[in-house]
């Protein structure tokens, strides 16, 4: 669920999901944390979700800077990733960019849709253009920024 909410309200730090988008039978407040890296990735996690599965992608700012994405190299499932280490790459006409993992974790899902249509990353970098889902312990890692801080960082 965390991803859906993040998609809907990309950019929000703490968002309460619409009732219609949760399948919980009783109302509850989901708390989605979304953070950003200096390498221009985002990671979001629903802290109420006990499975601790976070979603990772590249930011709108990064997608715009890269231009037309033509290929995305995805990692194999179950591979471990380390914070600040590359797990895949995004290729545009202009350049190739590593995708760095914001935190340590294990790859539990990859966005297969990107194989056929890498341009989804340009259309919806912080939504349908997510790249992987990671099983994580927490979103605590060095250098992760909140939205406002990241925005300021990109404007520097």
């Amino acid at each position: 669920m965390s991803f859906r909410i993040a998609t809907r309200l990309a950019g929000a730090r703490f968002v309460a999901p619409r009732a219609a988008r949760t399948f919980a039978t009783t109302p509850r407040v989901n708390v989605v944390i979304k953070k950003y890296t200096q390498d221009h990735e985002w990671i979001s996690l629903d802290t109420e979700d006990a499975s601790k599965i976070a979603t990772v992608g590249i930011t709108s700012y990064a997608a715009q800077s890269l231009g037309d994405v033509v290929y995305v190299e995805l990692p194999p499932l179950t591979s471990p990733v380390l914070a600040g280490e590359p797990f895949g790459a995004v290729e545009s006409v202009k350049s190739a960019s590593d995708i760095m993992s914001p935190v340590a974790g294990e790859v539990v899902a990859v966005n297969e849709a990107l194989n056929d249509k890498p341009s989804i990353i340009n259309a919806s970098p912080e939504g349908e253009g997510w790249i992987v889902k990671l099983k994580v312990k927490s979103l605590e890692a060095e250098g992760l920024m909140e939205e406002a801080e990241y925005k300021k960082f990109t404007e520097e």
Partner: protein
Amino acid sequence: MLPRTLRLTCARTALPRTTTKSVFTIAVRKYTSPAGVPPVELKKTPLHDLHVAAGAKMVPFAGYSMPVTYADQGLAESHKHVRTKAGLFDVSHMVQHRFTGPAALPFLQSLTPSDLSKLLPNTSTLSCFLHPVTGGIVDDLMITLHGPEDFYVVSNAACAEKDLAYISENLSSFPRRSEVEHTVLDGQGLIALQGPESMLILNEFLLHCLGDTASCPDLKKFLFGQTMFVDSPYGKLHVARGGYTGEDGFEISIPKEHTVAVTKELLEIGKGDRVKLAGLGARDTLRLEAGMCLYGHDLDDSTTPIEAGLKWLVGKDRVAEGGFHGHETISRQYADWKQVPRRRVGFTIEKGAPAREGAEIVDPATGEVLGKITSGCPSPTLGTNIAMGYIKSGFHKAGTEVAVKVRGKTRQATVAKMPFVKANYWKGE
């Protein structure tokens, strides 16, 4: 303004890593001087403010602040616009020279392998400055003959310092140095109008400038490789038919103070959808599709013109006569391909990750490293991955199946003829 990271071009955690670069460094890398001197204060071309007003993404390139892309078009879109309509590039950062005097011809011939004595007046040729003994390429350049004692030369911005030192050093030891005058046309504007609509747009511009059809040059009789001067209200313009995209087009040299006005007028004539400003990004992918070299990437000081696939610019009589830098090496390679250890060739690469500069080329049968990719990108025109690079002689024939390594993975590649996209030069009706 330029941000720092988003790292680039490497392998996954488990794989051996070669480099880690940012997307922004890569944009800069592609377009930065091989000398790599990060300038404290970037120079501006006469069109700098016009670029900024058009929402250009500006990057440092060869000591200048230059546009990579503009707000209205992404790289691929801009690229396709040039192939289908027209693009206008600011190339004022390039170095424009004049060599005049009775010994201008022998001086230039002592530095280059070109037979400039066979060049017709008001025509241009690609050439290169060579290093003594090794015959390595100092820089590639366009040389235009205006008169028997008057040459106009355009060289790369990224090599400006090196070239000027090379010219002055060679001139000071040239016996007839007092009969050669070398001038750098400092601040002179240079723009490139490229694409199938270029002729119509320039024709309208000339009609507008010159007022009547009688004094207007007939562009249909002005062919690829030819040049002319136009006395216009914007001063004396030098127009050369050709360019760096493989399309029909013109490179227009303009007095500094009129560069903005000429550019604005061309944009006005082509407004709507005919001509759009295009930046270094499209310039790089267009020239790669056209199979043209970018100095510092596909050519360098250790590469001879023969290895670089530029044998055609070496004059046959020059090889026989000698008297130019690197003659011994070049004549040996000219006479016998066995003396050429590696060759610049094109590659098409299987669907998936494109191979870019630095990727190793290997023999799929033995794993032997055969060479390196020097430029590569997904071709916006073809939709496939294209590249050029140097490969060990023997593997250079078109159709040869090889492999390239991209982030540790082996990908199929095939040696291909260049250009990748058919040239569209104006050679008459």
